[in-house]
């Protein structure tokens, strides 16, 4: 029941729907008692030979009217109560999305997509069930059941009611026990089911090994065994599940029998009419449902309670990056001054960055190279305030990042990550993601700069091609170029390419970068890259290693210093020669380092 208390805020918010809904539901419950009453009247009148046509017509008219009103009211209460429940589901889904929108990437690392989705699907569904069917079964079992019993006691016979209801507690207890057993067995069956799930998963991931060892038949046999197991476990569930119907039927039958046997005595003694007895047995029939509903109720409430708790826990997580009270609302602009003494991720032991100090003047290009995990992406994350610096500060235009509103800060940046994420909408909408009102000409211009325009035109539907639709696959390089076009369309103050061209071939990369140099005069660009050719022209290049700046300078300076940069540069030249199939006849000695000046 406590879940109703937790949901009270919603019941209050939807006061009108719930009050009217429950009100009509109660009226329905009472009106349902009328047809048995009419049956009794007619029956008794027939028996006592007092039935006249007028009376019959009156009574039947009453019954017909009841039927019509019932139909109408049943329609109305469903709309009120179920409608409110659907609105709750809608509200919860919206709140979840709002909440996620405020969360930092940290949050999404800690919570897997599947987990979060389970909140928005199964849990929301369960809470919706509580607010709809839960309320209904509560009213039905408690209130309606109560009304029927009251009526049986007051209007017909309290003695007969007591006798007939004698077996009912047995049913309630039996059903409760079955529920407990079934729950246990069901859990076992589910575990067996998840075993075959794992088995199939293993089988499909290991398909190559299976085929090369000719394991197919053996696999089939062991699957058959597991699947047999599932069947056995499910049969155990079925053994209990099949008890419900017959048990209810047995108890109801006994109740009927008792009602008839003892009822007839009352009839003979004149304490009761035959019509009343019939009416009584009809009421008994009406009681079966509330009894069952009582059993369902606990199930629904239990599920709803667990799910609502999960949703509440999730929604209670606060964003880890917060804005100051009177933060600057104008977009960040100007020189970037980075001064990080040390930064350690939450829960990590070793610092991810140490002693990183440098200044990037407005309009300059900074190149960052280094092995995977050397701290390049961490630096970008701090720059965009995805996490707060623990020791040190980053300033843009003289103000600390923390002084800006988050949206003002983000407006300054155009960030293109390595794993370019595209939405399942048209290519045009993907490029115009940040500015849906952009003209087609602007979109195409951005696509040209990112060297993806021609690729798009070869697609059957061109810019209107929907990403990710059946048979539509974009290569990694194409996806990266589309997400670069998305950034270029916005022409941000500070463009960050975080290894964003890794899947693009060297020649296209060079073309894109030369476009960028031309277009981004006066604006700041930060590029992290594996391929050094992409950052040769940068005013400053830093080499990161284990969270520190290992080498710092421009291309020529770094080559001259004969460090890691110079050595990697040679290796990369060799590699690119191999990729091109050796470029027959190229006998350039590898050790000499040719370079072009920008």
């Amino acid at each position, binding site marked *: 029941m406590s879940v109703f208390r937790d949901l009270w805020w919603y019941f209050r918010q939807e006061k009108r729907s719930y009050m009217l809904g429950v009100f009509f539901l109660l009226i329905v419950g009472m009106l349902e008692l009328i047809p048995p009453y009419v049956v009794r009247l007619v029956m008794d009148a027939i028996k006592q030979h007092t039935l006249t046509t007028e009376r019959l017509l009156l009574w039947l008219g009453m019954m017909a009217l009841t039927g019509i009103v019932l139909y109408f009211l*049943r329609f109305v209460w469903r709309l009120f109560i179920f409608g409110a429940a659907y609105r709750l589901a809608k509200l919860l889904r*919206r709140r979840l999305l709002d909440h996620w929108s405020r969360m930092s990437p940290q949050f999404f690392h800690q919570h897997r997509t599947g987990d979060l989705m389970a909140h928005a699907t199964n849990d929301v569904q369960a809470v919706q069930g509580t607010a709809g069917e839960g309320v209904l079964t509560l009213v039905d079992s408690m209130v309606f059941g109560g009304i029927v019993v009251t009526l049986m006691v007051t209007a017909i016979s309290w003695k007969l009611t007591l006798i007939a209801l004698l077996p009912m507690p047995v049913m309630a207890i039996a059903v409760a026990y079955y529920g407990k057993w079934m729950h246990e067995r069901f859990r076992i069956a589910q575990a067996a089911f998840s075993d075959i799930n794992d*088995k199939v998963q293993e089988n499909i991931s290991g398909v190559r090994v299976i085929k090369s060892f*000719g394991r197919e038949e053996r696999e089939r046999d062991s699957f058959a065994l597991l699947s047999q197991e599932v069947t056995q476990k499910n*049969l155990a569930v079925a053994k209990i599940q099949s008890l419900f119907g017959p048990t209810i039927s047995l108890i109801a039958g006994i109740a009927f029998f008792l009602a008839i046997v003892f009822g007839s005595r009352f009839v003979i003694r004149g304490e009761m009419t035959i019509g009343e007895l019939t009416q009584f047995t009809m009421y008994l029939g009406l009681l079966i449902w509330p009894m069952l509903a009582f059993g369902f109720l606990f199930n629904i409430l239990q599920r709803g309670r667990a799910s609502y708790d999960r949703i509440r826990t999730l929604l209670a997580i606060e964003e880890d990056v917060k804005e100051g009270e009177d933060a600057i609302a104008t977009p960040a602009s100007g020189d970037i001054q980075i001064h990080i003494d040390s930064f350690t991720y939450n829960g990590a032991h070793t610092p991810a960055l140490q002693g990183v100090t440098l200044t990037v003047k407005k309009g300059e290009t900074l190149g960052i190279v280094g092995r995977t995990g050397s701290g390049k992406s961490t630096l970008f994350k701090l720059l965009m305030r995805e996490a707060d610096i623990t020791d040190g500060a980053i300033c843009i235009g003289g103000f600390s990042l923390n002084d800006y509103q988050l949206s003002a800060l983000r407006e300054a940046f155009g960030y293109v990550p390595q794993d370019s994420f595209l*939405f399942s909408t048209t290519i045009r909408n993907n490029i115009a993601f940040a500015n849906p009102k952009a003209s087609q000409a602007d979109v195409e211009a951005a696509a040209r700069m990112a060297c993806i325009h021609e690729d798009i035109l070869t697609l059957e539907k061109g810019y209107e091609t929907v990403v990710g639709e059946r048979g539509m696959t974009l290569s990694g390089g194409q996806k990266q170029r589309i997400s670069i076009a998305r950034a270029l369309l916005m022409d941000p103050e500070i463009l960050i390419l975080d290894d964003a061209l890794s899947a693009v071939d060297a020649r296209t990369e060079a073309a894109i970068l030369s476009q960028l140099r031309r277009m981004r005069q006066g604006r700041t660009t930060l590029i992290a890259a594996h391929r050094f050719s992409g950052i040769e022209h940068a005013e400053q290049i830093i080499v990161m290693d284990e969270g520190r700046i290992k080498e710092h300078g421009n291309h020529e300076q770094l080559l001259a210093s004969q460090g890691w940069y110079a050595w990697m540069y040679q290796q990369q030249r060799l590699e690119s020669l191999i990729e091109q199939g050796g470029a027959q006849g190229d006998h350039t000695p590898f050790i000499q380092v040719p370079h072009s000046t920008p």
Partner: protein
Amino acid sequence: MITRRLFRYLIPHRKALIGVILLLFIATAAELTGPLLIKVFIDDYLIPESFPRSPLMWLGGLYLGLHLVSVVFQYLQQFAFHRIALAVVQQLRLDVFEKVQYLGLSFFDRVADGSLVSRITNDTEAVKELFVNVMSTFIKNTVLMIGVVVAMFLLDAKLALISFILLPLIFGLMQWYRRLSFHVYQVIREKLSEINARLSESIQGMGVIQAWRQEQRVAREFAEINEQHYQANIKNTKLNSLLLRPAVDILHIATGIVVLTYFGIGVEQSAVQIGVMYAFINLLDRMFEPVNQMTMQLSFLQQAVVSVGRVFELLDENELAPSKKGEDHPRINSGRIAFENVTFSYDGKTNVLQDITFVAEPGQTVALVGHTGSGKSSIINLLMHFYSIQQGRITIDGHSHETFDKEELRTKMGLVLQDPFLFVGTIRENIRQGNDALSDEDIQQAAELVQVDSFISQLPKGMDEPVVERGATFSSGQRQLLSFSRTMALSPKILILDEATAHVDTETEEKIQKALNRMRQGRTTIAIAHRLSTIQDADLILVLHQGMIVERGTHQELLAQQGLYHKMYLLQQGMERAVG
């Protein structure tokens, strides 16, 4: 169509099914005799107010006895229904699983693992719901309704005629609802999957959304779909309220009115039997409950049909693994492999291999080198007959490799994959690979050959140590060695190595290299090599680029050529220097 095919799965259970329906008839008959007995009681004893002891005892005993019979049979019948349904689902699952076993690798290249798993498990589970709930409800309640009609005719044939109007009306109502709701249901399902797709996309793309400050727009667009889903739900609720329970109930009341009118008007002609009236009203109650139960199942029916469709789609898949050609049963004796002008394409458009020709003489080692995508793995895929070749020929000991029995290819050709995929089970089972011809001794020898025996003997349970999913508790080097031993257990004539690129420590690396050298002795070996240092003693090195052999020769010859191989060698030397 789908339903008919599904019903074919019931054929092996037809006897059991007939038994169940028989049980059902008995249970129903016993159940429906109850009201008739009460009628006899009311009309013959209660109204005349005569209560002879022994007939009444009989009547009461009969009532309770029949009721008990009905309840017991109900239970037996329900359980039997479950048993049949579960057996059908198991058969369906086995069929799908077996089908998948014999699909070609080209199929697995194309279909995502996740969707395949879900079809074998979740979709067949939905079929279970269909059989256990939907079908049993329909059969049970149909029998019950027939029983009620029969009982009505026994009571009063004239009044029972009303069922002839009632039944088509109910049936029509259900059909009408099904037609109307089908569309609404589809909309709800579509909107719900759209909601889920949007949400999961928002979670995955939240970084992009936040970076471009589109939170509000995304929220707005989501709210739109959320609203559409809500509206569809409301529409469905309205439809349910108009046509389902409330409609069935008003029909119930209307019938009640007709019955009362019948008795009320008939009262003047003859003495109405009150008992008949009681029984009739009671039977009517029993007739409408099944209707409500059936209508409740309609929506499940529609969901299950979609799942069943997906299962059958998979069963109809005909992208089978390539099969053996010809009637001969050639044997692999010496292990001479020859590729003759082999050209191959996965998709029929771009060739991944072009005009590949080479010979591996018995006992020789042929190494394949080249960067990612150059076609090395495709050569192995073809040799293992995972795919059919389109042009050219591969022969083993002079016979086309397509004419060998699968069994022969698998026992004589040992493949070591890059990913040392281990199965859940014990170490022994993983080495044996279900080949019962192998004795424990053979397995021990295989382990000794690759020198993984000392590692195994250190495990608490030795050979019987359990292996968890993918062997995650072992290091990658250990997994690699175990996968060597399972290949060597078959003592193959030909060894095919897809060298691991996994990072292992130097000591393990040395062990692996030693093991590989021992394995290669006396066997024809085709090896994909990433570290050129490991193949310096190969008899032939093929350098692949874009599906073509661009250089060939021994290590020394290739270095002397100063071509691609030479550059690769220099690159790796540089790398090793940097690491060391």
